[in-house]
């Protein structure tokens, strides 16, 4: 599998991905072999079905949302670039990245990009607001059946109330950031990718 991966992945492509996502060379090739093993159609792109075939995702409450996050608006396929771009959100922030000059384009794994990723999980209609309904949907997904809907509703209400600053009964991205400002997002939205 490894050899196949390296043959299919051109060197300049790797360079580009490296630049864009910050993954190391070996990480990219490793993830590429994962990508190809997921790609049952062998057409260089992943479809939703490919993702859904991952057994663990079937028992992940937010599995489908996360799968959706891999797909750009209105598309049904994702290529390796897109795949890596999404994964890059979860790359831990390294020390040398912290003091980069802020003028350079923000890396995908910056705090706000991580938050944006999470925010998009809620924000289905992409109006940059988490409405009560959207929040409820996610809550319902994450919560066992032994919580009543009313209970959930009031939790959702309270959540929104807590975060909502401008009184529009929904959580905007700014409010989302504000609410989570004390949370160590950099750590909690990071995965250690193997080198």
């Amino acid at each position, binding site marked *: 599998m490894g050899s196949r991966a390296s043959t299919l992945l051109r060197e300049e492509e790797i360079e580009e991905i490296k630049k864009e996502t910050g993954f190391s060379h070996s990480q990219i090739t490793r993830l590429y072999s994962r990508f190809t093993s997921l790609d049952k159609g062998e057409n260089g792109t992943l479809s939703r079905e490919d993702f859904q075939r991952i057994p663990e995702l079937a028992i992940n409450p937010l599995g489908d949302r996360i799968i959706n996050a891999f797909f750009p608006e209105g598309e049904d396929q994702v290529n390796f670039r897109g795949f890596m771009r999404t994964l890059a959100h979860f790359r831990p922030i390294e020390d040398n990245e912290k003091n980069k000059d802020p003028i350079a384009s923000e890396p995908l794994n910056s705090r706000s990009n991580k938050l944006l990723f999470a925010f998009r999980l809620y924000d289905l209609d992409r109006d940059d607001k988490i409405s009560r309904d959207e929040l409820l949907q996610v809550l319902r997904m994450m919560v066992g059946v032994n919580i009543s809907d009313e209970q959930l*509703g009031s939790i959702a209400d309270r959540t929104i109330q807590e975060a909502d600053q401008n009184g529009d009964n929904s959580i905007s991205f700014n409010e989302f950031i504000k609410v989570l400002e004390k949370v160590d997002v950099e750590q909690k939205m990071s995965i250690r990718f193997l080198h």
Partner: protein
Amino acid sequence: LPPLLSSPLLSSPLLSSPLPLLSSPPSPLLSSSPLLSSPLLSSPLLSSPLLSPFVSSPLLSSLLSSPLSYPLSFLFHFSQRFTTVVPESCMLILLGLVLGGIVLLTSKKQLYQLEPGLFFLFLLPTIVGDAGYFMPARLFFDNLGAILLSDVSLCSDQKVQAGLMEFLLFGALISAVDPVAVLAVFEEVHVNETLFIIVFGESLLNDAVTVVLYKVYMSFVEVGPENVQTADYFKGVASFLIVSIGGTMVGLIFAALLAFITRFTKKVRIIEPLLVFLMVYLAYLTAELFSLSAILSMTFCGIGCNKYVEANISQKSRTTVKYTMKTLASIAETIIFIFLGISAVDKSKWAWDTGLISCTLIFIFVFRALGVVMQTWVLNWFRLVPLDKIDQVVMSYGGLRGAVAFALVVLLDAERVPAKDYFVATTIIVVFFTVMFQGLTIKPLVNWLKVPRATNRKPTINEEIHERAFDHCLTAVEDIAGLNGYHHWRDKWEQFDKNYLSKLLLRKSVYRKSELWEVYQKINIRDAISVIDQGGNVLTSARLSLPSMASRASFPEVTNVTNYLRENGSGVCLDLQVIDNVPGAKVEEESETHHFLAGNLYKPRRRQTLHDSGDHERQDREIFQRNMKSRMETFKTTRHKRHSHKKDRSQKKRRGSDVKEQDLNDKPRRNVSWQDKDPVVVPVESEDEKGEHLEPEKEEDVGITFVARKVPDTPKERPKSVPAGLEVCQSPSVAPPSPTCSERNLPWKGGIGTLPVCVSMEATKIIPIDLQQAWNQSISSLESLASPPGPVEPLHPRVSALSRLGGQRPVSYSGSGVSGSGFGSRGAGSIVAQGIARFEFPPGGEEKDEEEGALSDQEQELQPLMSSSVRPPGPPPPPPLAQGLGRRRNPCVYLRSLVTAPPPGSEPLARSRGPTQL
């Protein structure tokens, strides 16, 4: 410092007094002494051969010191100025010095020494047991690698300092970072969790290393350095492994045993705390007996059994265990430090050698720092969040030596180790230096370095939810990226836990999450109290939480109602406040919600380490079904229009959408899939169906549960119902006492005839129907709380049968008796929701209309959630008049009669509540 000075003087007679004096503790402060003495007294019975040598003297002296020292440490907590600067442990050592000096002056001979036997058999276990039992297991295991690594090598660092075997021995014992000292200092400093866990965990495990090394070197010394061969070194390493692993195993075995036993203590709750103590202590003793690492054993026993025991034992036992352990631990801690001080004064025991002492101090410092830096360097290769320099500094600075080293050195055999006196002196100085100097300076240091402190604040609801979402995200992404190595062993363990351990060790009822009920109940009460406590605001909230606004017309001003209710309530509520003295601030409420969420949100796999109980499987199933369902829908719709599926999903889930429409949407879809003979689809669909069956069941829960939530609106229900509910429900798994019993037995219930007085005619007139109704609901809900969720189950077959009827299901379901209360509850639910939502908007003018509006609002809001889309045909809120009569004594009867009459299926439920009607 007058209190400090006077108290030793006061207590010095105590010191020299015989045991009998203690049996009648002179002040209430001394009440802690019985606590201490009981384990001490009972332990000899446990393993008399082992303990008999120690029973006599340590027992006496510890008994002596416990009443003495405890009030003193108590005093420290009052002298605020000192404690902000000086850690308690330093103060205690100082005090010990003073005490020791006084005793020495008076009797010319040091009477009370910190004896190793006492220390290792009684004092250390209490502290370690406390730490182990309450150790946040997840954190611990997260950092286990770090702990192990830093531990082993830090210890070995120190032996470099001398060539001689004896110095090696000394190096081994002096390098032990003392859990007691570290615990004492770090807890006061409040460093962040990671740091704390690493340093503390390290010092805990250190014991294993130290004791082993100590024993190994001890044997080397005995043999004589010239006789030691290379093979012996390997033996040393092997024995280290055996000791630590063996200790762990013993601990785990006892943990399993303890968990298993507590499974059957349902009828004898009273022995639960005792069992916990005894078994944990037994683990310690057993390990000690086999020369295994006792601390490791105890720690792991605590960690291992915590999850199961907590789930098995009753709430009261839990509280007892918690506070007793904490008390014991702090007593032991105090005693140790005081003894340390006392022992230091006795000159006969030690000999001064400046060179040795200064060398030791320097070496300790240097090697600790070196070790930390080296290991963190290695560790950071593997850690997601590297330990930075500041952490390293604190880690190396936090290497406090304490009582363990001291006890070990005192244990040395003076004949074999001629330099013992020097070692003792050095150890004492080192301990003093590290505890006093480092202990004093670590706080400023931490401040100066701006080490992130532990935050005591509870996560907000937002954080709670979002962080959980993050976790799910991470898990999913890990799965997608094919990285399963990181949490691999943890997953394995969970599988094992789920499949075998939980089944074996957990009570069956625990699967039903009785915890949920407790928490739930609390939320309701907090809600109620907080609403009331909001004073003026009650107007709005109470008003908003009324199920209907109809009768509000009879009230010129709602404020009056609420005020009236409040006043009325406060008189009657005394009982409640006794039971539940939490002031019901919003914070409380939130923290409850937080717990609630914590208990009920699905946990991502990586999270469920040890804390999670056996409902994992169910969770998986639920999620799986849900996901499959949504995928099915996606699949189907994408057939029609390939690209619109996202839209469809969101539409399907859009809560605000028209109910009917949704219903329609739902049904055809299902039919389609039924007709689909797709081999894959069919099984999935059936599962889907199953999921549907589950839903109703859940909703019932909801119905019942929910009502309780309702509590907020009426203050006066608190007096009556809440205490009863509380009392009864305290331990829900005890054979559910019928509410009637409680009614009869409880004093305030007994006088039921009188009760109405408070609520009485006036109230009947004044209180709007809706309040009445709400009140009834809350009462019935509390009763339903009294009866565990069990009865719900019998419904299941019926509901599922109904659901097979297709479109009928929601209707018949909600129409059935269950929803009689369910209906009310629903109303209430949305009320709460609306209450919050509408808080900002002052009410419109028209009362009647509003009522209807409110109702339909509720419906709209709720129905999509409830998936039962048709408005329940059940009776609308009970008519005011009937209510007025029925309500006073047992208003719930009315409701219940409504509830229970129609449905055949809900009989069990009805029966469970039946008794109340008497």
